[in-house]
């Protein structure tokens, strides 16, 4: 229980207590498991901790900006980001994929901006329209979402593309997109899948077949999935204990500090540990839902709901991949996986949620 003065202080600073607390809790869990996953490298943990502080600073900074101003800037970032995606598409360099933009001072991933710019711009566009939206409006939003999504997909970065498109399409969903449209989209997806299969190159098909039957590819992705499931399953109720995960220490786990860090977590902390982190995520998600419900305009509602559910998609896709339920796509576990780019984006997203919550005109305590 916090005192009234503390609450006032946080409110004056435009900080939302529950969100801040949840984020810090997850970050701490992340650093603990990272120490183990990095082979007990304090250097890695310190570096990640600094990134988290940077992320928290970004979060608090964004929270100071009113939603109105955020909504006005969103299209600017959207247009800039899309242009940069085209530039990357044409000249990008990177680790085997065209996703980085080399600048003199920093290596920069434009697709990361779009994770926020797409839902924000869609919500900005829908804010003054009659909702639920009708056809021409829906078409505009679809183009707005699918153009950057497609550019990211051809980079190729399937994981980020999924997150960008999910965030944008969720805005449309929450705006009240007719169920008939949704049904049409789902059915056409089912119909188009076999056509896409024929259009694919041999090695792409091979990768999909591997997802369906991991044992077929003992050197590639299949091996990783099997090893990851062994790590999770052998964790049991209470885990093998911190720093005692044999799967990660014997290097059976791939990408164990980044995309597969959840496997290390499961192995060392077991089902109980998993429930703890799930509760921490639920806290943040629940607060997001609450903020969406109490938002006072369409922009706030749509953005808050979309960002919250996108965070869930993030978590679900990563965990599903680690426990062998979903195909392997490069999606990190929010706030836990090693790496700075997605961390800063997520924290910025939290900052936007805080801004929506703390800049309401009439604050009604519930």
């Amino acid at each position: 229980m916090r005192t009234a003065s503390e609450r006032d202080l946080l409110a004056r600073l435009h900080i939302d207590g529950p969100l801040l607390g949840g984020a810090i809790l997850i970050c701490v869990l992340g650093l603990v498991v990272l120490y183990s996953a990095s082979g007990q490298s304090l250097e890695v943990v310190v570096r990640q901790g600094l990134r988290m502080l940077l992320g928290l600073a970004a979060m608090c900074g964004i929270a100071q900006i009113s939603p109105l101003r955020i909504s006005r800037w969103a299209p600017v970032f959207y247009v800039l980001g899309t242009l940069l995606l085209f530039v990357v598409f044409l000249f990008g360099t990177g680790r085997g994929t065209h996703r980085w933009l080399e600048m003199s001072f920093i290596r920069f991933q434009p697709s990361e901006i779009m994770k926020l710019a797409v839902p924000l711009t869609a919500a900005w566009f829908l804010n003054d329209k009659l909702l639920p939206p009708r056809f021409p409006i829906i078409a505009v939003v679809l183009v707005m979402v699918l153009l950057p999504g497609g550019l990211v997909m051809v980079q190729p970065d399937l994981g980020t593309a999924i997150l960008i498109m999910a965030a944008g399409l969720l805005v449309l969903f929450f705006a009240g997109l007719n169920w008939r449209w949704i049904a049409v989209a789902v059915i056409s997806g089912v119909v188009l899948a076999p056509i896409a299969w024929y259009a694919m190159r041999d090695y792409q098909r091979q990768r999909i077949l591997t997802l369906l039957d991991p044992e077929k590819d003992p050197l590639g992705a299949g091996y990783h999935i099997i090893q990851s499931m062994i790590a999770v399953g052998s964790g049991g109720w209470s885990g093998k204990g911190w720093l005692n995960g044999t799967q990660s220490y014997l290097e059976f786990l791939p990408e164990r500090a980044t995309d597969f860090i959840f496997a290390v977590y499961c192995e060392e902390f077991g089902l109980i540990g998993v429930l703890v982190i799930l509760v921490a995520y639920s806290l943040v998600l629940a607060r997001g839902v609450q903020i969406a419900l109490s938002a006072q305009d369409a922009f706030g509602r749509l953005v808050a709901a979309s960002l919250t559910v996108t965070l869930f998609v993030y978590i679900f896709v990563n965990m599903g991949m680690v426990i062998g339920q979903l195909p392997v796509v490069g999606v990190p576990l929010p706030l836990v996986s090693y790496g700075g780019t997605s961390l800063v984006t997520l924290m910025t997203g939290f900052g936007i949620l805080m801004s929506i919550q703390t800049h309401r005109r009439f604050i009604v305590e519930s």
Partner: protein
Amino acid sequence: MLKLKKFRTLVGQSAQVSTQSQEVRVFQRRLWFAVSGMVLLALLLVIRLILLQVIHHDHYTTLSQENRLKVLPIPPTRGLVYSRNGVLLADNRPSFALEVVPERVPALDQALTELGKIIPLDDDQLERFDTERSEKRRFDAVSLKINLTEEEVAIFEANRYRFPGFDIKARLTRYYPLGSQLAHVVGYVGRINVDELNEIDEGDYSGTTHIGKEGVEKAREAVLHGTAGYEQVEVNAQGRILRVVERVAPVPGKDVHLTIDTDLQAAAINALKGQRGAIVAIEPATGAVLAFVSNPAFDPNEFVNGISAKLYAEWRNSPDRPLVNRALQGLYPPGSTVKPAMSIAGLHFGVRTPGDTVWCPGWLQLPGQDHKYRCWQKQGHGTVDLMRSIAESCDVYYYALARDLGIDRMHEILSQFGFGKLTGIDLPGELGGLLPSREWKKRVRKMPWFPGETLINGIGQGFMLATPLQLAHMATILANRGEVLVPRVVAELEDPLTHVVEPIAPFNRPAVEVANAAHWRPAIDGMHEVVQGSHGTARATGAGAAYQYAGKTGTAQLFTIAQDHTVKNQNVTKLLRDHALFIAFAPLEQPEIAVGIIIENGESGSHTAAPIARELFDFYLKQKPPEDDAHS
């Protein structure tokens, strides 16, 4: 529903509030729907986790305890490359490399300094090491120094306890025994770079470090590489390998046998005497490339383990441009070598008969123009018929022919002789040159076609550009009297284990459409006159040959000589002198070899390029034993 909404917007404020509240109601329903969805999916996750961690826990614990099995990839042995006459062109040789796993080295910079004291490391190696390290993951091995001497290996082994994370790996390195001789055909392999990583099958290449970058090595990467095998090994708790449990052997890559004859190739290089240029020789019956020279060349071995920045800069900036594959990518105006094809176009469209003559006073003017289109022969050829026009290479004859044909019909026939498009040779990076047309000029130059340009293109100057390969290809088409075979350098693939040979069949394209097969005769007779007639431009080189053959000289102008001015070539700096061109095939009937030759700044096709063709024909037709036919 629609009407209702319109009504509401019309009614105003109160209706606005009611749409607003409807909007909020829809939103809240959607949000609760999404929340139920999230709860449901989260439950699925938890159920799956319970399944793995509680119900099947024992199973996975057993697997984890028995998980002493690691899968290690075994790279396949790369296929070898041989010439037509069985000379080994690309070999695999054992070598030792010093590798580092950065994650396992406590203080990398310090370790490198220490190591430098016992094994010399130069800046180039360290720089390459840094580049490779930045592209790889921390737990991947990065090579630091390749081709260690046996002494260096011994020194390292004695000191290895001081360098955790450093290891010596024995492996096979690509080696090209003939060096620069076939660099532009065989190409070379190099370390896999980030762009290539994206295109290859990760599993199949997980133990492979090198990939074909140029030439046959690149074109035939799929067959040369083979399929990776793997080894399941048992490791102890520290990760040390105890024994091999299962081994799936890799499938080695196939050996590639080329159509290139290394003796002829060497003869061609010698004949160039160090001049810049290109020579392509093709067997007309099959399209098999017998020699493929681009001079000067480079030593491909330098690229295998990463070329030093200094040497690379030197090659790149050399005015001789050894890295450029002139035969495949060098673009030159084909000059007078197009005249036989032009004469065939004239016959095909009925614009000329073989006996039709043109009066050559040394120039031709278009009506209403002052400009004189000049013949190379200043004083003129006099009366010229088709055969003489080829034998003596009369420009005025072809100015007039081009004028009468028009650019569209010229384009139609010359295109069938392979100009302006890829020959389709099985080497990467081929250029198709340029065969201008009205449509091209409008599209690229945004200008209409001018009649004068037709004339200039009629003697192979102006916009026209062709590669030496295209010239040899045209010589092949003339030798075959219209039949078009795609040139190729790979003759067959051989499985190194079973020795099963898979020949690559010759591949035909639609033949040149000529109204009457007899139209080939005068052009070929004219080409015969060029080398073995009494007035031919290259009669000096054809004299005394033991066989009949056909050729056509050409000069590619680099330097436009102003009207009514003569510039002695001695006064023109060497790099501005004309390129010398020559196409030829031999023998005249049932030809066995066709060539295209370019000598850069060689000035005159008849003096510098034509003798080379004679030398190659003498060499090839004499040394070739009759039973060798079975091989090709």
